[in-house]
């Protein structure tokens, strides 16, 4: 990885649009939107609502499915000299396993990111990422079916995220990324209708940064694997905060919408930060919060 800065899945599409605004070759990695086995229509609109220091979204993992992804999106991403991370999600352990199987040996994929924030239809709709047992099982199933590095993306909607992190690492995860969005809701006081067609949605943006920093710090105390810090990052100092908490890399999500150049500015900003304090190596920051 050239640098520790990448887009957060679902805020970067397949990279095509961003390639018109920024030089993708400058990024640390390319992370595509979650792909599922079959195409998904996504949720009924409205899918977005702005709230203080963040947004609520209920996209519903709309995507064209793995086959389309492999045929159209992956070849595009391969043009760039940047590691590609494919983010996948399923509604059953079998689906995760099958997706990994499909991706097995596919050229040009550097890592798989498991989005385990979706409900397990079989286990009565409990979110995979909310149960250390389910999270471990999904990870193990994926691990068994693919040999490239495996990143598991954790959901913050839990009491003890370290336990989940421990479980997925024990089950074979090479890294963890956190956090996904926090479940929220907003109601239109004129119409009495929920602001989102799906009633509830995921909260993202600066509003959740303190939650994300705390969880990254907790997880860093528990597991030894690299952590990709995500949540409300929009500036260099935000990124530094995550490094100090224990993240080895960071992903930018919602901020990409406000300023498509955010990632580039952070990449340059980190260099400046290190120079200014003549720190030779970024790794000297990781987990260095003085508690």
């Amino acid at each position, binding site marked *: 990885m050239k640098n520790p800065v990448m887009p957060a899945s*679902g*805020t*970067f*599409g397949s990279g095509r*649009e*961003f390639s*018109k*605004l920024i030089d993708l070759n400058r990024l640390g990695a390319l992370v595509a*939107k979650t792909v599922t086995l079959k195409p998904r*229509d*996504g949720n*009924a*609109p*409205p*899918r*977005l*609502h*702005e709230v203080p*220091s*963040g*947004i609520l*979204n209920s*996209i519903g993992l*709309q995507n064209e499915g793995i086959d389309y992804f492999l045929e159209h999106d992956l070849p595009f991403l391969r043009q760039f000299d940047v590691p590609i991370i494919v983010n996948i999600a399923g509604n059953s352990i079998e689906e995760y396993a099958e997706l990994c199987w499909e991706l097995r040996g596919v050229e040009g994929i550097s890592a798989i990111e498991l989005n385990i924030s979706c409900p397990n239809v079989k286990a009565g709709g409990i979110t995979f990422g909310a149960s250390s047992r389910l999270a471990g099982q999904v990870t193990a199933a994926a691990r068994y079916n693919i040999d490239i590095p495996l990143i598991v993306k954790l959901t913050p909607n839990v009491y003890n995220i370290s336990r989940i992190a421990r479980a997925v690492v024990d089950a074979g995860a090479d890294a963890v990324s956190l956090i996904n969005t926090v479940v929220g809701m907003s109601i239109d006081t004129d119409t009495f209708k929920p602001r989102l067609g799906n009633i509830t949605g995921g909260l993202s*943006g*600066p*509003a959740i940064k303190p939650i994300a920093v705390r969880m990254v710090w907790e997880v860093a105390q528990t597991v030894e694997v690299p952590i990709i810090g995500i949540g409300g990052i*929009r500036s260099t100092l935000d990124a530094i905060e995550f490094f100090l908490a224990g993240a080895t890399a960071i992903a930018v999500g*919602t901020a*990409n*919408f*406000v*300023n*498509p*150049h955010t990632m580039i500015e952070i990449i340059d900003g980190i260099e400046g930060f290190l120079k200014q304090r003549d720190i030779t190596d970024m790794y000297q920051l990781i987990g260095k919060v003085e508690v």
Partner: protein
Amino acid sequence: MFQVNADVIAKEEVVPGVFSLTIVSPEISENAKPGQFVHIACNQDGDFQLRRPFSIHRIVPGKAFEILFKVVGRGTEALSKVKVYDTLNIVGPLGNSFKYSEKITSALLIAGGVGVAPLTYLAEELTNKQVKFYAMLGAQTSTRMLRYIDFKRLAKKTYTATDDGSSGYKGTVVDLLNRTIHQIRPEVVYACGPEPMLKKIVQTADEFGVECQVSLETKMACGIGVCLGCACKTKKGYKMVCKDGPVFDARDIAWGKDEIEPWSKEEIKPTLLGDNECEVEVVETSD
């Protein structure tokens, strides 16, 4: 598609609460098409706020472009406080555009309120391409009528409708359309305005078997097609207003049925009447 820091070189409060900004950007000006929009970071302080989408209202070829917007909330409020020579961070031009063929002998442009924004640009384009067109502008009252002069200059004929009858037809552009479409006999209708208005216009167009292109509005996050947040339901599944739109062929849209206000068939039965019953003196408006 560009992200630019562009200077505001002109600002006008066209009618109370409605502003126009002229913004210098060769990139956007050169690449824009009628119907496209720009995505603007409205608030200057560091606080988090999504960009806001605004149609390209007019073009200074190769140099600048203009937007016309109404203050409705935080973003437009902040944008209305921008001063000449301030710099705005803008992404654009974005979205698709109005489709037209140079063979058209008569088009009809229908604008409700600030919906006139993208249609003004279209009107200038059609004029350049020598495509003849009619125009209908709606407003609450004559003093809030937007861009009448421009359309008067460009259009074969410009009808106006005001809720209070202070200018042109007394009623909505929808009623006006229903009473006049038979005489205008447009080959294509281009409409922009509040959704309820669009829905009714589309119904009328349908009745008369006329093609109708509408510019839709939704909340947007990215504006460039990556977040899939601006979905609108069409007969071909969800489309993204920011990328597949904002201009859609009315026939493709799966309008939320429930939302269509009920209205009686009679209303749209065309009552034949002479031109001048609709051709009215319009008090000059502030622009």
